[in-house]
């Protein structure tokens, strides 16, 4: 029943020369789930995510996103997903409104949709006063929240978030996760990588990657039980200690 799965991966592998960045990973993500994708630096999280988003061609293995094959339907998948990269990637020399309009437009949304939704979005983010401010002038926390809103502006089935809260203060981080919950409540599947282990607790299920393979995958509660740990932090420590790869 692939229809009910947002993402499936089967022996998905990415090699860069001799280096195997992602080594035959297999897992499934249910529709509407918040799926945490954890791992140390260089474990292969971003590479895996880039394959699902159609930015990187897998070396071997199979995968589907929104029921579509990532080899054949690469471009069709793009209409159905949102993506927020590690690097902030809205246009800093465009205003808040212009950025929203641009991304709405290139996903083929109508002018009336863009206009209506922009107002709602600005209201939710409390950015009405900054609508015509250049994005470059916003504080980092606001930028990240805006980037997330833009990533789901075209109402995708799945949104991929690559370390969305890096460098953001704890209060904004909490607000950010509230936005993720709201998105999930609307039925958007959330696939998120993070380094913050408290955030892992917010996920429905969590996978932990070590050296290109998935070392563990379950709900946070089950993982803690399995590893006799009091928090996700301890689980992660036990798994990642054996890692051979260092930074990137």
């Amino acid at each position: 029943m692939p229809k009910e799965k947002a993402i499936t991966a089967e022996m998905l592998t990415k090699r860069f020369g001799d280096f195997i960045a992602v080594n035959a990973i297999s897992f499934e993500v249910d529709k509407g789930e918040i799926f945490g994708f954890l791992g140390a630096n260089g474990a292969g999280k971003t590479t895996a995510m880039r394959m699902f988003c159609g930015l990187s061609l897998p070396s071997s293995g199979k995968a589907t996103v929104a029921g579509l094959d990532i080899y054949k339907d690469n471009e069709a998948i793009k209409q159905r997903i949102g993506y927020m990269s590690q690097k902030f990637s809205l246009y800093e020399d465009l205003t808040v409104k212009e950025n929203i309009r641009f991304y709405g437009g290139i996903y083929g949304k109508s002018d009336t949709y863009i206009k209506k939704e922009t107002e709602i979005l600005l209201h939710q983010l409390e950015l009405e006063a900054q609508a015509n401010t250049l994005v470059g002038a916003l504080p980092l926390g606001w930028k990240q929240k805006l980037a997330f809103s833009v990533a789901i502006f075209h109402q995708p089935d799945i949104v991929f978030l690559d370390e969305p809260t890096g460098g953001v203060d704890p209060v904004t981080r909490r607000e950010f996760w509230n936005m993720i919950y709201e998105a999930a409540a609307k039925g958007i599947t959330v696939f998120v990588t993070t380094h913050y282990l408290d955030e892992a607790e917010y996920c429905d299920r969590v996978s932990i990657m070590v050296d290109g393979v998935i070392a563990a995958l379950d709900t946070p509660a089950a993982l803690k039980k399995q590893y006799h740990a009091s928090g996700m932090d301890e689980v992660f420590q036990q798994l990642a200690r054996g890692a051979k790869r260092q930074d990137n």
Partner: protein
Amino acid sequence: MRTLRFLLQKEFRQIFRDPSILRIIFMMPIIQLIILPMAADYEMKNINLVVTDHDHSVYSRQLINKITASGYFKLAAVNNSYQQSLRDIEADKADLVLEIPVAFEKKLIRENTAGTFIAVNAINGTKGNLGAAYIRTIIQDYNQEIRSKLLPFSGMPPQPQIAITYANWFNPQMNYKFFMVPGILVLLLTMVGANLTAINIVREKEIGTIEQINVTPIRKHHFILGKLIPFWILGLIVMTLGFVVARVVYGISPAGSFLSIYAFAAVYLLAVLGLGLLVSTYSNTQQQAMLVSFFIMMIFVLMGGLYTSISSMPEWAQWITKLNPVSYFIDVMRMVVLKGSSMKDILPQFFTITGFAFVLNGWAVWNYRKRA
């Protein structure tokens, strides 16, 4: 089409919000067109001449006067010894030394022949050689003058002479600026087209926005058109500005039609924009893009036929210039602006540059990948 509209809107907003791009687009052509043609003058003037006059006669003085009156030479010094003059060459005070021997006048009248000696400072070879050629012509001229003055007394039959008069077609006054201005305009257009496009796209790579674009359903050709069209328009604006400057400052307006120039420029711009795009697909940082375009521009400029004539290059170099789009446009500019050539005359160049546009853009599109 709708996607393209959003892309163009975004590009134009960004361009007009960036003061440095605007400065490049509007100030660069004006400054370059005003300074370069005035400064880069191939006519030799101000050749520093040092004369060693051992004769101090009426004739020797007349010769010196005639030379300085030509307007090409600046009499830097008159020395008594050749050694002193050589020292002037060593100190770079002299480009040319003219030595007039002892008894120059006497020999000229009595023996009907006299020698002079010219030493050339070959460090600035062109200047020295051209100066020597000028001076030779002046001395010959002077020779004829004396002969015709002395002839009536000698009883010899007058020597037959061949007089040469010149007519310079297409640029009657041999005005160097007529030659330079259209050429510089071509270089400007090339720089705007290739460099700005390359840097613009690579900047998106550097900031990371291109990755965000690559996860959207934007078609590759839409994205590329969205990048090329704004710079295509800007290129034509720069050219128009250039023609305004050419008209106002130098009084140059094309002998042929603007239509043929713009038609050619429209396709030419596509070719250089394609080149910029190609450079961007091979570079990851703005620095790389800058260096590569700088390298290409150097070759384009020096082998484009503006500063050195292509027909006097060695054959292998002439083959290289065939791969240089700049050389075709400079050709076309000169044909249309100076000769008044029509669209029909520039058709060969037109087809060649269309080929360039297809190859460069095709290569760039092929090499631009949304997925690595």
